[in-house]
Protein backbone atom coordinates (compact mmCIF):
# COMPACT_ATOMS: atom_id res chain seq x y z
CA UNK A 1 0.00 0.00 0.00
CA UNK A 2 2.82 2.40 0.81
CA UNK A 3 4.12 1.92 -2.72
CA UNK A 4 0.76 2.90 -4.06
CA UNK A 5 0.62 5.98 -1.85
CA UNK A 6 4.11 7.02 -2.87
CA UNK A 7 3.29 6.43 -6.50
CA UNK A 8 0.17 8.56 -6.19
CA UNK A 9 2.38 11.29 -4.75
CA UNK A 10 4.59 11.13 -7.83
CA UNK A 11 1.55 11.14 -10.11
CA UNK A 12 0.21 14.18 -8.29
CA UNK A 13 3.46 16.09 -8.63
CA UNK A 14 3.58 15.39 -12.37
CA UNK A 15 0.05 16.58 -12.88
CA UNK A 16 0.66 19.53 -10.59
CA UNK A 17 3.71 20.62 -12.58
CA UNK A 18 1.60 20.75 -15.70
CA UNK A 19 -1.10 22.74 -14.00
CA UNK A 20 1.51 25.13 -12.69
CA UNK A 21 2.77 25.81 -16.21
CA UNK A 22 -0.72 26.69 -17.39
CA UNK A 23 -1.74 28.56 -14.26
CA UNK A 24 1.46 30.60 -14.05
CA UNK A 25 0.59 32.33 -17.30
CA UNK A 26 -2.83 33.23 -15.97
CA UNK A 27 -1.32 34.51 -12.76
CA UNK A 28 1.27 36.64 -14.57
CA UNK A 29 -1.40 38.21 -16.74
CA UNK A 30 -3.60 38.79 -13.76
CA UNK A 31 -0.80 40.28 -11.74
CA UNK A 32 0.04 42.89 -14.33
CA UNK A 33 -3.30 43.51 -15.99
CA UNK A 34 -5.89 42.36 -13.46
CA UNK A 35 -7.61 40.55 -16.28
CA UNK A 36 -8.72 36.99 -16.83
CA UNK A 37 -7.80 35.38 -20.13
CA UNK A 38 -10.08 32.53 -21.14
CA UNK A 39 -8.28 32.08 -24.44
CA UNK A 40 -5.28 30.85 -22.48
CA UNK A 41 -6.75 27.35 -22.73
CA UNK A 42 -6.66 27.48 -26.49
CA UNK A 43 -3.06 28.61 -26.50
CA UNK A 44 -2.36 25.37 -24.64
CA UNK A 45 -4.28 23.39 -27.25
CA UNK A 46 -2.61 25.14 -30.16
CA UNK A 47 0.77 24.58 -28.54
CA UNK A 48 -0.01 20.88 -28.36
CA UNK A 49 -1.07 20.78 -32.00
CA UNK A 50 2.01 22.74 -33.04
CA UNK A 51 4.21 20.19 -31.31
CA UNK A 52 2.24 17.35 -32.85
CA UNK A 53 2.55 18.61 -36.39
CA UNK A 54 6.18 19.53 -35.90
CA UNK A 55 7.07 16.00 -34.79
CA UNK A 56 4.74 13.94 -36.95
CA UNK A 57 4.16 15.92 -40.13
CA UNK A 58 7.57 17.52 -40.38
CA UNK A 59 9.47 14.77 -38.66
CA UNK A 60 11.01 17.05 -36.06
CA UNK A 61 12.51 16.08 -32.74
CA UNK A 62 10.03 16.02 -29.88
CA UNK A 63 12.22 18.05 -27.54
CA UNK A 64 12.65 20.63 -30.28
CA UNK A 65 8.89 20.70 -30.67
CA UNK A 66 8.60 22.01 -27.13
CA UNK A 67 10.57 25.03 -28.26
CA UNK A 68 8.38 25.35 -31.35
CA UNK A 69 5.25 25.29 -29.21
CA UNK A 70 6.79 27.91 -26.96
CA UNK A 71 7.33 30.13 -29.97
CA UNK A 72 3.82 29.54 -31.29
CA UNK A 73 2.43 30.34 -27.86
CA UNK A 74 4.45 33.54 -27.69
CA UNK A 75 3.14 34.69 -31.06
CA UNK A 76 -0.42 33.88 -30.04
CA UNK A 77 0.04 35.81 -26.82
CA UNK A 78 1.20 38.79 -28.79
CA UNK A 79 -1.82 38.50 -31.07
CA UNK A 80 -4.36 38.11 -28.27
CA UNK A 81 -2.96 41.11 -26.45
CA UNK A 82 -2.76 43.28 -29.54
CA UNK A 83 -6.21 42.33 -30.76
CA UNK A 84 -8.20 42.09 -27.55
CA UNK A 85 -6.60 43.44 -24.43
CA UNK A 86 -4.77 46.46 -25.78
CA UNK A 87 -7.84 48.01 -27.46
CA UNK A 88 -10.01 47.28 -24.42
CA UNK A 89 -7.56 48.55 -21.82
CA UNK A 90 -8.68 52.16 -21.99
CA UNK A 91 -12.22 51.21 -21.13
CA UNK A 92 -11.09 50.00 -17.72
CA UNK A 93 -13.78 47.35 -17.49
CA UNK A 94 -13.28 44.07 -15.64
CA UNK A 95 -15.87 42.31 -17.67
CA UNK A 96 -15.39 43.24 -21.31
CA UNK A 97 -11.94 41.70 -21.88
CA UNK A 98 -13.08 38.59 -20.04
CA UNK A 99 -16.04 38.18 -22.36
CA UNK A 100 -13.99 39.01 -25.42
CA UNK A 101 -11.61 36.20 -24.52
CA UNK A 102 -14.54 33.82 -24.10
CA UNK A 103 -15.51 34.81 -27.64
CA UNK A 104 -11.96 34.28 -28.88
CA UNK A 105 -11.90 30.92 -27.15
CA UNK A 106 -15.11 29.75 -28.86
CA UNK A 107 -13.73 31.05 -32.14
CA UNK A 108 -10.36 29.31 -31.83
CA UNK A 109 -11.87 26.01 -30.70
CA UNK A 110 -14.17 25.85 -33.65
CA UNK A 111 -11.59 26.98 -36.17
CA UNK A 112 -9.42 24.15 -34.85
CA UNK A 113 -12.39 21.80 -35.11
CA UNK A 114 -12.66 22.74 -38.79
CA UNK A 115 -8.97 22.29 -39.43
CA UNK A 116 -7.99 19.39 -37.24
CA UNK A 117 -11.29 17.54 -36.94
CA UNK A 118 -12.83 16.09 -33.81
CA UNK A 119 -11.04 12.74 -33.79
CA UNK A 120 -8.39 12.63 -31.07
CA UNK A 121 -4.81 12.72 -32.28
CA UNK A 122 -2.58 9.96 -31.00
CA UNK A 123 0.31 12.11 -29.87
CA UNK A 124 2.93 9.93 -28.26
CA UNK A 125 6.37 11.30 -27.66
CA UNK A 126 9.34 8.94 -27.82
CA UNK A 127 9.32 9.07 -24.03
CA UNK A 128 5.64 8.31 -23.47
CA UNK A 129 6.03 4.59 -23.02
CA UNK A 130 9.45 4.60 -21.43
CA UNK A 131 9.07 3.42 -17.88
CA UNK A 132 11.80 4.42 -15.45
CA UNK A 133 11.78 2.37 -12.26
CA UNK A 134 12.35 4.32 -9.08
CA UNK A 135 12.81 3.33 -5.47
CA UNK A 136 10.34 1.08 -3.66
CA UNK A 137 8.55 -0.23 -6.74
CA UNK A 138 7.48 3.18 -7.94
CA UNK A 139 7.98 4.36 -11.46
CA UNK A 140 7.77 7.40 -13.66
CA UNK A 141 7.44 7.56 -17.42
CA UNK A 142 10.07 9.34 -19.45
CA UNK A 143 7.48 11.84 -20.58
CA UNK A 144 6.49 12.66 -17.02
CA UNK A 145 10.11 13.06 -16.04
CA UNK A 146 10.55 15.54 -18.89
CA UNK A 147 7.49 17.38 -17.67
CA UNK A 148 8.88 17.71 -14.16
CA UNK A 149 12.35 18.69 -15.32
CA UNK A 150 11.23 21.20 -17.92
CA UNK A 151 8.62 22.71 -15.63
CA UNK A 152 11.10 23.10 -12.80
CA UNK A 153 13.68 24.64 -15.10
CA UNK A 154 11.17 27.02 -16.61
CA UNK A 155 9.85 28.08 -13.26
CA UNK A 156 13.38 28.64 -11.98
CA UNK A 157 14.25 30.68 -15.08
CA UNK A 158 11.11 32.72 -14.74
CA UNK A 159 11.88 33.29 -11.11
CA UNK A 160 15.40 34.43 -11.87
CA UNK A 161 14.09 36.69 -14.58
CA UNK A 162 11.61 38.30 -12.23
CA UNK A 163 14.13 38.66 -9.40
CA UNK A 164 17.32 39.63 -11.14
CA UNK A 165 16.65 41.37 -14.43
CA UNK A 166 15.55 44.94 -14.81
CA UNK A 167 12.57 43.97 -16.94
CA UNK A 168 11.56 41.36 -14.41
CA UNK A 169 11.73 43.82 -11.57
CA UNK A 170 9.74 46.30 -13.58
CA UNK A 171 7.15 43.60 -14.18
CA UNK A 172 6.83 42.95 -10.51
CA UNK A 173 6.61 46.65 -9.87
CA UNK A 174 3.75 47.00 -12.32
CA UNK A 175 2.05 44.05 -10.73
CA UNK A 176 2.18 45.79 -7.39
CA UNK A 177 1.51 49.32 -8.45
CA UNK A 178 0.94 50.44 -11.97
CA UNK A 179 2.00 54.00 -11.37
CA UNK A 180 5.52 53.15 -10.27
CA UNK A 181 6.30 51.53 -13.61
CA UNK A 182 5.91 54.87 -15.24
CA UNK A 183 8.40 56.25 -12.73
CA UNK A 184 10.90 53.57 -13.70
CA UNK A 185 10.80 55.00 -17.20
CA UNK A 186 9.25 51.96 -18.78
CA UNK A 187 6.36 52.02 -21.17
CA UNK A 188 3.70 49.98 -19.37
CA UNK A 189 2.29 48.85 -22.71
CA UNK A 190 5.58 47.16 -23.52
CA UNK A 191 5.56 45.46 -20.14
CA UNK A 192 2.05 44.22 -20.62
CA UNK A 193 2.93 42.87 -24.03
CA UNK A 194 5.96 41.16 -22.55
CA UNK A 195 3.79 39.59 -19.87
CA UNK A 196 1.39 38.25 -22.45
CA UNK A 197 4.18 36.84 -24.55
CA UNK A 198 5.80 35.12 -21.57
CA UNK A 199 2.50 33.82 -20.22
CA UNK A 200 1.37 32.45 -23.56
CA UNK A 201 4.79 30.98 -24.30
CA UNK A 202 4.46 29.05 -21.03
CA UNK A 203 1.01 27.89 -22.09
CA UNK A 204 2.22 26.82 -25.53
CA UNK A 205 5.09 24.94 -23.99
CA UNK A 206 2.68 23.38 -21.50
CA UNK A 207 0.63 22.26 -24.47
CA UNK A 208 3.58 20.53 -26.09
CA UNK A 209 4.18 18.57 -22.91
CA UNK A 210 0.50 17.97 -22.20
CA UNK A 211 -0.07 16.70 -25.74
CA UNK A 212 1.30 13.24 -25.08
CA UNK A 213 -0.78 13.04 -21.89
CA UNK A 214 -4.00 14.73 -22.88
CA UNK A 215 -6.60 13.46 -25.25
CA UNK A 216 -5.56 15.78 -28.04
CA UNK A 217 -8.66 17.32 -29.60
CA UNK A 218 -9.50 20.98 -30.21
CA UNK A 219 -11.09 20.97 -26.76
CA UNK A 220 -8.04 19.63 -24.93
CA UNK A 221 -7.09 22.90 -23.30
CA UNK A 222 -10.53 23.52 -21.84
CA UNK A 223 -10.20 20.41 -19.68
CA UNK A 224 -7.27 22.03 -17.91
CA UNK A 225 -8.21 25.67 -17.85
CA UNK A 226 -11.03 25.65 -15.33
CA UNK A 227 -8.77 23.87 -12.91
CA UNK A 228 -6.02 26.35 -13.70
CA UNK A 229 -8.37 29.14 -12.67
CA UNK A 230 -9.03 27.35 -9.43
CA UNK A 231 -5.28 27.07 -8.86
CA UNK A 232 -4.73 30.74 -9.57
CA UNK A 233 -7.35 31.64 -6.97
CA UNK A 234 -6.20 29.15 -4.38
CA UNK A 235 -2.68 30.46 -4.79
CA UNK A 236 -3.82 34.07 -4.63
CA UNK A 237 -4.39 35.99 -7.85
CA UNK A 238 -1.15 37.31 -9.23
CA UNK A 239 1.02 35.48 -6.71
CA UNK A 240 3.65 33.32 -8.39
CA UNK A 241 4.78 31.32 -5.34
CA UNK A 242 1.20 30.73 -4.30
CA UNK A 243 0.34 29.45 -7.76
CA UNK A 244 3.18 26.95 -7.70
CA UNK A 245 2.15 25.58 -4.33
CA UNK A 246 -1.54 25.53 -5.28
CA UNK A 247 -0.80 23.78 -8.57
CA UNK A 248 1.09 20.99 -6.85
CA UNK A 249 -1.61 20.81 -4.20
CA UNK A 250 -4.35 20.37 -6.78
CA UNK A 251 -2.29 17.73 -8.58
CA UNK A 252 -1.91 15.80 -5.34
CA UNK A 253 -5.57 16.22 -4.49
CA UNK A 254 -6.43 14.72 -7.86
CA UNK A 255 -4.30 11.66 -7.48
CA UNK A 256 -5.33 10.99 -3.89
CA UNK A 257 -9.00 11.61 -4.66
CA UNK A 258 -8.64 9.02 -7.39
CA UNK A 259 -7.02 6.66 -4.93
CA UNK A 260 -9.38 6.99 -2.01
CA UNK A 261 -12.66 8.25 -3.42
CA UNK A 262 -13.38 8.37 -7.12
CA UNK A 263 -11.94 10.29 -10.04
CA UNK A 264 -15.47 11.44 -10.86
CA UNK A 265 -15.41 13.55 -7.69
CA UNK A 266 -12.15 15.40 -8.39
CA UNK A 267 -13.85 18.55 -9.61
CA UNK A 268 -16.15 18.66 -6.62
CA UNK A 269 -13.22 18.33 -4.21
CA UNK A 270 -11.06 20.91 -5.99
CA UNK A 271 -13.79 23.48 -6.34
CA UNK A 272 -15.07 23.01 -2.83
CA UNK A 273 -11.54 23.74 -1.70
CA UNK A 274 -11.63 26.81 -3.91
CA UNK A 275 -14.84 28.08 -2.35
CA UNK A 276 -13.55 27.36 1.15
CA UNK A 277 -10.41 29.25 0.30
CA UNK A 278 -12.39 32.21 -0.93
CA UNK A 279 -14.58 32.21 2.12
CA UNK A 280 -11.88 31.92 4.75
CA UNK A 281 -8.73 33.19 3.10
CA UNK A 282 -9.66 35.24 0.07
CA UNK A 283 -6.13 36.52 -0.43
CA UNK A 284 -4.91 33.04 -1.26
CA UNK A 285 -2.40 30.71 0.31
CA UNK A 286 0.25 33.36 0.57
CA UNK A 287 -1.44 36.46 1.82
CA UNK A 288 -0.55 39.87 0.57
CA UNK A 289 -1.73 42.70 2.70
CA UNK A 290 -3.16 45.52 0.73
CA UNK A 291 -4.53 48.65 2.25
CA UNK A 292 -7.33 50.27 0.40
CA UNK A 293 -6.61 53.88 -0.24
CA UNK A 294 -9.72 56.01 0.08
Amino acid at each position, binding site marked *: MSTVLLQQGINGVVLGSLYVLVALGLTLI*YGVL*VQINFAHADVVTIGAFAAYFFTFTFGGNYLASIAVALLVGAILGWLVNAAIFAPLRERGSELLP*LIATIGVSVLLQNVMLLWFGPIPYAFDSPYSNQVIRLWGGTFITGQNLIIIVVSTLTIALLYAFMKFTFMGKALRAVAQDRETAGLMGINPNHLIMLTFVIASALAGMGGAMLGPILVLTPFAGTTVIVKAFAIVIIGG*FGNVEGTIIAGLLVGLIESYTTQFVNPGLIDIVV*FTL*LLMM*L*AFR*PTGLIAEKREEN*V
Partner: protein
Amino acid sequence: MSSRDHTELANPFDRSSVSRRWWLLGAIVTIGLLPLVFQDSYWRTNLIVCALNVMLAIGLDFILGYAGQLNLGHSAFYGIGAYVSTLVITKLGLPFWVAFLCGIVLAGAAGMALSMFAVRLRGHYLAIASLGFAVIVHQVLVNWISLTQGPLGIYGIKPPPEIALPGLPVISFGNSANMFYLVAGFALLFYVLLDQLVRSPIGETLTAIREDEVSASSLGINCPAWKVFAFGAGSAVAGAAGAFYASSVGTLVPDAFIITESFTILAMVIVGGMGTLIGPVWGAILLTVLPEVLRGFGDLRLVLYGAALTLVVLFMPGGIVQAAQIVRAQFDRLRARLEAG
Protein backbone atom coordinates in the same frame (compact mmCIF):
# COMPACT_ATOMS: atom_id res chain seq x y z
CA MET B 1 -15.51 57.82 -26.47
CA SER B 2 -14.85 61.13 -24.89
CA SER B 3 -17.14 63.01 -27.22
CA ARG B 4 -19.99 60.95 -25.90
CA ASP B 5 -19.18 61.67 -22.29
CA HIS B 6 -20.28 65.23 -22.62
CA THR B 7 -23.52 64.50 -24.33
CA GLU B 8 -26.55 64.04 -22.20
CA LEU B 9 -27.40 60.46 -21.46
CA ALA B 10 -30.40 59.16 -23.29
CA ASN B 11 -31.61 55.61 -23.35
CA PRO B 12 -33.75 54.98 -26.41
CA PHE B 13 -35.83 52.55 -24.40
CA ASP B 14 -36.29 54.80 -21.43
CA ARG B 15 -39.82 55.99 -21.85
CA SER B 16 -42.46 57.50 -19.73
CA SER B 17 -44.84 55.19 -17.94
CA VAL B 18 -47.62 55.93 -20.42
CA SER B 19 -45.66 54.77 -23.42
CA ARG B 20 -44.36 51.84 -21.37
CA ARG B 21 -47.93 50.65 -21.17
CA TRP B 22 -48.14 50.76 -24.95
CA TRP B 23 -44.92 48.82 -25.19
CA LEU B 24 -46.30 46.23 -22.81
CA LEU B 25 -49.45 45.94 -24.86
CA GLY B 26 -47.31 45.57 -27.98
CA ALA B 27 -45.29 42.82 -26.32
CA ILE B 28 -48.46 40.96 -25.31
CA VAL B 29 -49.89 41.20 -28.83
CA THR B 30 -46.59 40.04 -30.33
CA ILE B 31 -46.42 37.07 -27.99
CA GLY B 32 -50.03 36.28 -28.90
CA LEU B 33 -49.35 36.40 -32.61
CA LEU B 34 -46.00 34.60 -32.78
CA PRO B 35 -47.27 30.99 -32.60
CA LEU B 36 -49.87 31.88 -35.24
CA VAL B 37 -47.14 33.09 -37.57
CA PHE B 38 -44.86 30.16 -36.81
CA GLN B 39 -47.05 27.13 -37.18
CA ASP B 40 -44.46 24.36 -37.35
CA SER B 41 -43.27 22.71 -34.20
CA TYR B 42 -39.61 23.44 -34.99
CA TRP B 43 -40.09 27.17 -34.91
CA ARG B 44 -42.44 26.91 -31.98
CA THR B 45 -39.76 25.06 -30.04
CA ASN B 46 -37.41 27.87 -30.95
CA LEU B 47 -39.93 30.36 -29.64
CA ILE B 48 -40.08 28.51 -26.33
CA VAL B 49 -36.30 28.40 -26.16
CA CYS B 50 -36.25 32.13 -26.90
CA ALA B 51 -38.57 32.75 -23.98
CA LEU B 52 -36.45 30.54 -21.70
CA ASN B 53 -33.31 32.37 -22.75
CA VAL B 54 -34.96 35.73 -22.23
CA MET B 55 -35.65 34.71 -18.63
CA LEU B 56 -32.08 33.56 -18.14
CA ALA B 57 -30.64 36.68 -19.72
CA ILE B 58 -32.71 39.20 -17.77
CA GLY B 59 -32.02 37.32 -14.55
CA LEU B 60 -28.28 37.41 -15.21
CA ASP B 61 -28.45 41.03 -16.28
CA PHE B 62 -30.10 41.94 -12.99
CA ILE B 63 -27.13 40.40 -11.17
CA LEU B 64 -24.43 41.47 -13.59
CA GLY B 65 -25.64 44.59 -15.32
CA TYR B 66 -27.36 46.23 -12.35
CA ALA B 67 -25.69 44.93 -9.21
CA GLY B 68 -22.35 44.52 -11.00
CA GLN B 69 -21.75 41.02 -9.69
CA LEU B 70 -19.56 39.04 -12.09
CA ASN B 71 -21.60 35.85 -12.19
CA LEU B 72 -20.17 33.21 -14.51
CA GLY B 73 -22.24 30.41 -13.05
CA HIS B 74 -25.77 31.22 -14.10
CA SER B 75 -26.18 27.75 -15.60
CA ALA B 76 -26.04 26.34 -12.07
CA PHE B 77 -29.26 28.08 -11.05
CA TYR B 78 -30.88 27.07 -14.32
CA GLY B 79 -29.94 23.47 -13.56
CA ILE B 80 -31.08 23.65 -9.95
CA GLY B 81 -34.47 24.97 -11.06
CA ALA B 82 -34.81 22.21 -13.65
CA TYR B 83 -33.77 19.35 -11.40
CA VAL B 84 -35.55 20.50 -8.25
CA SER B 85 -38.85 21.07 -10.01
CA THR B 86 -38.63 17.69 -11.73
CA LEU B 87 -37.56 15.75 -8.64
CA VAL B 88 -40.24 17.33 -6.49
CA ILE B 89 -42.78 15.90 -8.94
CA THR B 90 -41.21 12.49 -9.43
CA LYS B 91 -39.87 11.81 -5.93
CA LEU B 92 -42.38 13.63 -3.75
CA GLY B 93 -45.39 13.38 -6.01
CA LEU B 94 -46.32 17.01 -5.58
CA PRO B 95 -48.19 18.91 -8.29
CA PHE B 96 -46.35 20.83 -10.98
CA TRP B 97 -47.02 24.32 -9.71
CA VAL B 98 -45.75 23.46 -6.24
CA ALA B 99 -42.66 21.96 -7.85
CA PHE B 100 -42.29 25.04 -10.01
CA LEU B 101 -42.31 27.19 -6.89
CA CYS B 102 -39.80 24.90 -5.20
CA GLY B 103 -37.53 25.23 -8.24
CA ILE B 104 -37.68 29.00 -8.06
CA VAL B 105 -37.18 29.13 -4.31
CA LEU B 106 -34.26 26.70 -4.25
CA ALA B 107 -32.51 28.32 -7.19
CA GLY B 108 -32.97 31.68 -5.52
CA ALA B 109 -31.73 30.31 -2.21
CA ALA B 110 -28.68 28.82 -3.91
CA GLY B 111 -27.97 32.19 -5.49
CA MET B 112 -28.31 33.91 -2.14
CA ALA B 113 -26.12 31.31 -0.48
CA LEU B 114 -23.39 31.72 -3.08
CA SER B 115 -23.63 35.47 -2.74
CA MET B 116 -23.45 35.34 1.05
CA PHE B 117 -20.54 32.97 0.81
CA ALA B 118 -18.77 35.27 -1.59
CA VAL B 119 -19.92 38.48 -0.03
CA ARG B 120 -16.42 39.74 0.55
CA LEU B 121 -15.38 38.92 -2.98
CA ARG B 122 -15.45 41.33 -5.79
CA GLY B 123 -14.82 41.24 -9.49
CA HIS B 124 -12.77 38.37 -10.72
CA TYR B 125 -12.77 36.48 -7.46
CA LEU B 126 -16.52 36.30 -7.62
CA ALA B 127 -16.31 35.37 -11.30
CA ILE B 128 -14.16 32.35 -10.53
CA ALA B 129 -16.12 31.48 -7.39
CA SER B 130 -19.35 31.40 -9.37
CA LEU B 131 -17.65 29.41 -12.10
CA GLY B 132 -16.49 26.95 -9.46
CA PHE B 133 -20.00 26.82 -8.03
CA ALA B 134 -21.37 25.95 -11.46
CA VAL B 135 -18.78 23.18 -11.85
CA ILE B 136 -19.73 21.77 -8.45
CA VAL B 137 -23.47 21.85 -9.19
CA HIS B 138 -22.91 20.14 -12.54
CA GLN B 139 -20.69 17.51 -10.98
CA VAL B 140 -23.19 16.85 -8.19
CA LEU B 141 -25.90 16.36 -10.82
CA VAL B 142 -23.57 13.92 -12.60
CA ASN B 143 -22.45 11.99 -9.55
CA TRP B 144 -25.54 11.83 -7.35
CA ILE B 145 -27.05 9.13 -9.51
CA SER B 146 -29.46 7.80 -6.89
CA LEU B 147 -31.20 11.15 -6.85
CA THR B 148 -30.69 12.74 -10.25
CA GLN B 149 -30.08 9.67 -12.41
CA GLY B 150 -26.81 11.39 -13.33
CA PRO B 151 -25.87 11.11 -16.99
CA LEU B 152 -28.46 8.38 -17.39
CA GLY B 153 -30.93 11.23 -17.55
CA ILE B 154 -34.56 11.70 -16.66
CA TYR B 155 -36.95 11.15 -19.53
CA GLY B 156 -40.62 11.62 -20.21
CA ILE B 157 -41.06 14.67 -17.97
CA LYS B 158 -44.62 15.82 -18.43
CA PRO B 159 -45.64 19.30 -19.47
CA PRO B 160 -47.50 21.37 -16.87
CA PRO B 161 -51.01 20.03 -16.14
CA GLU B 162 -53.94 21.14 -18.24
CA ILE B 163 -55.85 24.13 -17.08
CA ALA B 164 -59.60 23.59 -17.19
CA LEU B 165 -61.50 26.76 -16.45
CA PRO B 166 -65.27 26.53 -16.42
CA GLY B 167 -66.80 27.83 -19.60
CA LEU B 168 -63.50 27.82 -21.48
CA PRO B 169 -61.87 25.14 -23.60
CA VAL B 170 -59.27 23.05 -21.76
CA ILE B 171 -55.78 24.47 -22.12
CA SER B 172 -53.26 21.71 -22.65
CA PHE B 173 -49.55 22.45 -22.50
CA GLY B 174 -48.71 19.47 -24.65
CA ASN B 175 -49.63 21.93 -27.36
CA SER B 176 -46.51 23.89 -28.25
CA ALA B 177 -48.41 27.13 -28.78
CA ASN B 178 -49.91 26.97 -25.30
CA MET B 179 -46.56 26.04 -23.81
CA PHE B 180 -45.07 29.06 -25.53
CA TYR B 181 -47.81 31.31 -24.16
CA LEU B 182 -47.09 29.97 -20.68
CA VAL B 183 -43.30 30.39 -20.83
CA ALA B 184 -43.43 33.71 -22.66
CA GLY B 185 -46.11 34.91 -20.27
CA PHE B 186 -43.84 34.20 -17.34
CA ALA B 187 -40.88 35.73 -19.15
CA LEU B 188 -42.92 38.88 -19.64
CA LEU B 189 -44.06 38.80 -16.03
CA PHE B 190 -40.47 38.53 -14.80
CA TYR B 191 -39.42 41.23 -17.20
CA VAL B 192 -42.08 43.61 -15.92
CA LEU B 193 -41.22 42.74 -12.32
CA LEU B 194 -37.51 43.35 -12.78
CA ASP B 195 -38.20 46.42 -14.85
CA GLN B 196 -40.32 47.89 -12.05
CA LEU B 197 -37.54 47.08 -9.59
CA VAL B 198 -34.80 48.70 -11.61
CA ARG B 199 -36.93 51.78 -12.11
CA SER B 200 -37.53 52.02 -8.39
CA PRO B 201 -34.99 53.16 -5.77
CA ILE B 202 -33.84 49.54 -5.69
CA GLY B 203 -32.45 50.02 -9.18
CA GLU B 204 -30.66 53.16 -8.01
CA THR B 205 -29.27 51.29 -5.03
CA LEU B 206 -27.99 48.38 -7.13
CA THR B 207 -26.35 50.64 -9.71
CA ALA B 208 -24.70 52.55 -6.90
CA ILE B 209 -23.23 49.30 -5.59
CA ARG B 210 -22.11 48.38 -9.09
CA GLU B 211 -20.38 51.70 -9.56
CA ASP B 212 -18.61 51.92 -6.22
CA GLU B 213 -19.27 49.89 -3.12
CA VAL B 214 -17.38 52.14 -0.74
CA SER B 215 -19.33 55.16 -1.88
CA ALA B 216 -22.55 53.23 -1.73
CA SER B 217 -21.99 52.23 1.87
CA SER B 218 -21.14 55.84 2.69
CA LEU B 219 -24.70 56.62 1.61
CA GLY B 220 -26.15 54.10 4.02
CA ILE B 221 -26.49 51.27 1.54
CA ASN B 222 -26.03 47.82 3.05
CA CYS B 223 -24.05 46.45 0.11
CA PRO B 224 -23.79 42.78 1.17
CA ALA B 225 -27.54 42.54 1.77
CA TRP B 226 -28.43 44.10 -1.55
CA LYS B 227 -25.96 41.93 -3.41
CA VAL B 228 -27.54 38.89 -1.83
CA PHE B 229 -30.95 40.21 -2.84
CA ALA B 230 -29.89 40.80 -6.45
CA PHE B 231 -28.24 37.41 -6.69
CA GLY B 232 -31.29 35.74 -5.20
CA ALA B 233 -33.74 37.48 -7.50
CA GLY B 234 -31.70 36.86 -10.64
CA SER B 235 -31.09 33.21 -9.87
CA ALA B 236 -34.74 32.66 -8.90
CA VAL B 237 -35.71 33.77 -12.40
CA ALA B 238 -33.16 31.29 -13.77
CA GLY B 239 -34.80 28.66 -11.56
CA ALA B 240 -38.16 29.37 -13.18
CA ALA B 241 -36.56 29.03 -16.60
CA GLY B 242 -35.11 25.70 -15.48
CA ALA B 243 -38.52 24.41 -14.38
CA PHE B 244 -39.96 25.34 -17.76
CA TYR B 245 -36.98 23.83 -19.53
CA ALA B 246 -37.63 20.47 -17.91
CA SER B 247 -41.34 20.50 -18.63
CA SER B 248 -41.05 21.70 -22.20
CA VAL B 249 -38.08 19.60 -23.36
CA GLY B 250 -39.17 16.56 -21.35
CA THR B 251 -35.62 15.32 -20.87
CA LEU B 252 -33.02 16.24 -18.28
CA VAL B 253 -29.34 15.46 -18.39
CA PRO B 254 -26.65 17.27 -16.39
CA ASP B 255 -24.78 18.27 -19.52
CA ALA B 256 -27.57 20.67 -20.43
CA PHE B 257 -26.25 22.83 -17.59
CA ILE B 258 -22.51 22.83 -18.14
CA ILE B 259 -20.55 26.03 -17.69
CA THR B 260 -20.50 26.81 -21.41
CA GLU B 261 -24.24 27.35 -21.01
CA SER B 262 -23.33 30.17 -18.59
CA PHE B 263 -21.13 31.68 -21.25
CA THR B 264 -23.95 31.51 -23.75
CA ILE B 265 -26.26 33.37 -21.38
CA LEU B 266 -23.50 35.86 -20.70
CA ALA B 267 -23.09 36.40 -24.42
CA MET B 268 -26.81 37.16 -24.71
CA VAL B 269 -26.53 39.82 -22.03
CA ILE B 270 -23.46 41.40 -23.57
CA VAL B 271 -24.63 41.29 -27.17
CA GLY B 272 -27.94 42.77 -26.12
CA GLY B 273 -26.53 45.46 -23.90
CA MET B 274 -25.63 44.94 -20.28
CA GLY B 275 -27.22 47.21 -17.72
CA THR B 276 -30.44 47.68 -19.64
CA LEU B 277 -33.21 45.14 -19.32
CA ILE B 278 -34.48 45.31 -22.87
CA GLY B 279 -31.02 44.73 -24.32
CA PRO B 280 -30.63 41.19 -22.94
CA VAL B 281 -34.11 40.39 -24.25
CA TRP B 282 -33.00 41.20 -27.78
CA GLY B 283 -29.66 39.53 -27.15
CA ALA B 284 -31.40 36.34 -26.05
CA ILE B 285 -33.69 36.36 -29.07
CA LEU B 286 -30.86 37.08 -31.48
CA LEU B 287 -28.49 34.49 -30.08
CA THR B 288 -31.22 31.84 -30.00
CA VAL B 289 -32.46 32.45 -33.51
CA LEU B 290 -29.10 33.22 -35.10
CA PRO B 291 -27.51 29.79 -34.51
CA GLU B 292 -30.66 28.16 -35.85
CA VAL B 293 -30.61 30.28 -38.96
CA LEU B 294 -26.88 29.70 -39.25
CA ARG B 295 -27.40 25.94 -39.35
CA GLY B 296 -26.92 26.27 -43.09
CA PHE B 297 -23.32 27.13 -42.32
CA GLY B 298 -22.76 23.84 -40.56
CA ASP B 299 -19.41 23.80 -38.88
CA LEU B 300 -18.85 27.50 -39.45
CA ARG B 301 -21.75 28.31 -37.15
CA LEU B 302 -19.84 28.41 -33.89
CA VAL B 303 -16.90 30.14 -35.55
CA LEU B 304 -19.22 32.97 -36.51
CA TYR B 305 -20.76 32.91 -33.04
CA GLY B 306 -17.37 33.32 -31.38
CA ALA B 307 -16.34 36.00 -33.84
CA ALA B 308 -19.58 37.89 -33.32
CA LEU B 309 -19.15 37.88 -29.55
CA THR B 310 -15.60 39.18 -29.79
CA LEU B 311 -16.48 41.84 -32.33
CA VAL B 312 -19.41 43.11 -30.30
CA VAL B 313 -17.21 43.53 -27.25
CA LEU B 314 -14.50 45.27 -29.26
CA PHE B 315 -16.60 47.58 -31.35
CA MET B 316 -20.02 47.85 -29.75
CA PRO B 317 -19.63 47.16 -26.03
CA GLY B 318 -23.10 48.55 -25.35
CA GLY B 319 -24.50 45.82 -27.59
CA ILE B 320 -27.73 46.14 -29.49
CA VAL B 321 -28.87 48.98 -27.25
CA GLN B 322 -25.82 51.01 -28.17
CA ALA B 323 -26.33 50.20 -31.83
CA ALA B 324 -29.93 51.39 -31.53
CA GLN B 325 -28.72 54.61 -29.88
CA ILE B 326 -26.32 55.25 -32.72
CA VAL B 327 -28.91 54.55 -35.37
CA ARG B 328 -31.32 56.82 -33.55
CA ALA B 329 -28.77 59.60 -33.27
CA GLN B 330 -27.99 59.32 -36.97
CA PHE B 331 -31.68 59.36 -37.76
CA ASP B 332 -32.25 62.44 -35.62
CA ARG B 333 -29.34 64.20 -37.24
CA LEU B 334 -30.64 63.36 -40.67
CA ARG B 335 -34.08 64.62 -39.79
CA ALA B 336 -32.64 67.81 -38.34
CA ARG B 337 -30.70 68.36 -41.53
CA LEU B 338 -33.76 67.76 -43.66
CA GLU B 339 -35.84 70.14 -41.58
CA ALA B 340 -33.12 72.75 -41.73
CA GLY B 341 -32.51 72.51 -45.45
